[in-house]
């Protein structure tokens, strides 16, 4: 199915509007071009390299639990781990 996955923003480069997020247990670079006002520590829904919008930590937790229950258990649980420190 077409899932967008919650991810935690760990770093932002204002010059490029790119962010580092914790997703699937690793740090990944995504674009913040489609959302306004996202900050480090926010959760965003990520789809094909773009943040679609901000969500609350509670929504993120709920959605990750759904994904885990739906079959993405291993990877979703990895996403819940504390983010890797920004390099």
């Amino acid at each position: 199915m077409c899932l967008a996955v919650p991810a935690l923003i760990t770093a932002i480069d204002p010059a490029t509007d790119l962010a580092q997020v914790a997703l699937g247990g690793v740090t990944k670079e995504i674009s913040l071009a489609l959302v306004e006002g996202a900050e480090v520590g926010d959760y965003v829904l990520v789809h094909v390299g773009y943040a679609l919008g901000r969500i609350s930590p509670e929504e993120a937790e709920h959605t990750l639990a759904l994904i885990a229950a739906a079959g993405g258990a291993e990877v979703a649980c990895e996403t819940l781990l504390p983010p890797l420190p920004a390099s």
Partner: protein
Amino acid sequence: MNDPAGRLQIHLHRQTGGLGVRIQSSRLTSASRVFIGKDLTATLETLPRLFSVCATAQTVACVSAGEAALGIPPHPRALATRLLLVDLETVREHLWRLLLDWPRFLGESPQGVAMAQVMAAFDQGRRALAANGDPLRTGPGRGTGAVRPDAATVAVATASAATAPTAALTALAAITRRQVLGQPPGDWLATTRDLQTLRHWARTSDTAAARLIDLVDRQGWAGLGRSPVAVLPPLTLATLEARLSGPGAEAFIATPLWQGAAAESTPFARQRNQPLVADLARELGNGLLPRLAAQLVELSSLLVALPRRLVALAESVPSDAHSDDSFDKPFGEPNAESIDEQLDPPAPQSIIPSVNGAEELLAAGQVPAVDPELTNPSSNTPERLALRAPPRPGPSAKVVPAQGETPQSPHTAATLSTGTGLAQVQAARGLLVHRLTLEQGRLADYRILAPTEWNFHPQGAAALGLATLPAADEPTLRRLAGLFITALDPCVAYDISIS
């Protein structure tokens, strides 16, 4: 890395005689099982969070299947509102491809600012259409398990629909005019009706979309990826029920086949009889340029049609919503002929779709049957949303069609007794089917068939199309493969590896 959303791993390997292609998917095709045990209201609240990319289409399919399972007909205005929302989502998704993906193949930057405006306009339109009574959610109860909004809420929602959604559609049309077509969508549709006029537009317009069409044309890539993979014909509900209920259902959902062969369900499939796409397909079959053109055509057609549908929706609001007797009107008695048609639907016709430019494929017997009346569903209409007909009160196991529904499917007593509902929706990327069973108000079974499983089947349109790409140097091959995959529009990220 692991990606909870799932990915497509697409491997191209050079071999004697061309390219070998292997497509592996890690998509969660059985994700719907997470809702088993929940009631329909909770499912409808949660489902958009999980399937947030095409949340509207998924929710409409879910609520429609749920209503069918309960034997509750949707209110016509609620149904019209839902389908309008689905098509609004298709506009957003097509603009994503055009504004963010297409520029990459030109070496240009994605148009993030414009896409952010698109998403804001979509949200505005969606909120306005759902104001005071979300037609995608459980409405105020009219008996246990009612899942339709009541007449009053729909009336308020559609009355407010007259302004904000219009503004949203105006904004989307303006973005399309400015960033994609260089002219109003209706003008583009009227003047771009064959290869020559498309070529003229591409060479004289200053947009990324025009430049990409021009590049594909000048580079001789127009027919790239052409394959004999057939268009998925309209499937009767009986056919879907047979595939989605048997022991092979899980395998069918993961790698669906039609009559033993892969088939595609895409914007190209929907638009292949439209004048421009048909003209291109005559020479290029289901190659790259007809696919790209189909996305432009579908976007433009929706932007022309949606304002009219919005006006019709607003005008359909009665002065006193509660006096709208159609809301509580039971299904009319069908005549015997319509029942018979449902119980014994005609076999698919063998077709000669001379307008789709695939004569040579037909000659090879590789294009399956298509009902000519259903070959060009450019947008969702109530007729396109084929609900499982709800049961008629009384002892009879026979069922009747919902209002506006073309009888398509037989229904059995066994199906009725288990409270199973089936719905299909034309989503942005193709046909989306939901099948759910309610037992004592809770989901006992839930299965979803999504278009990406058809289009990225290991022997499907993507795989066979990619196998025809020229064995060019790696950067060129990667670029062509990415362009063709984008034209087929998977709903997940993908990786290309080449050996």
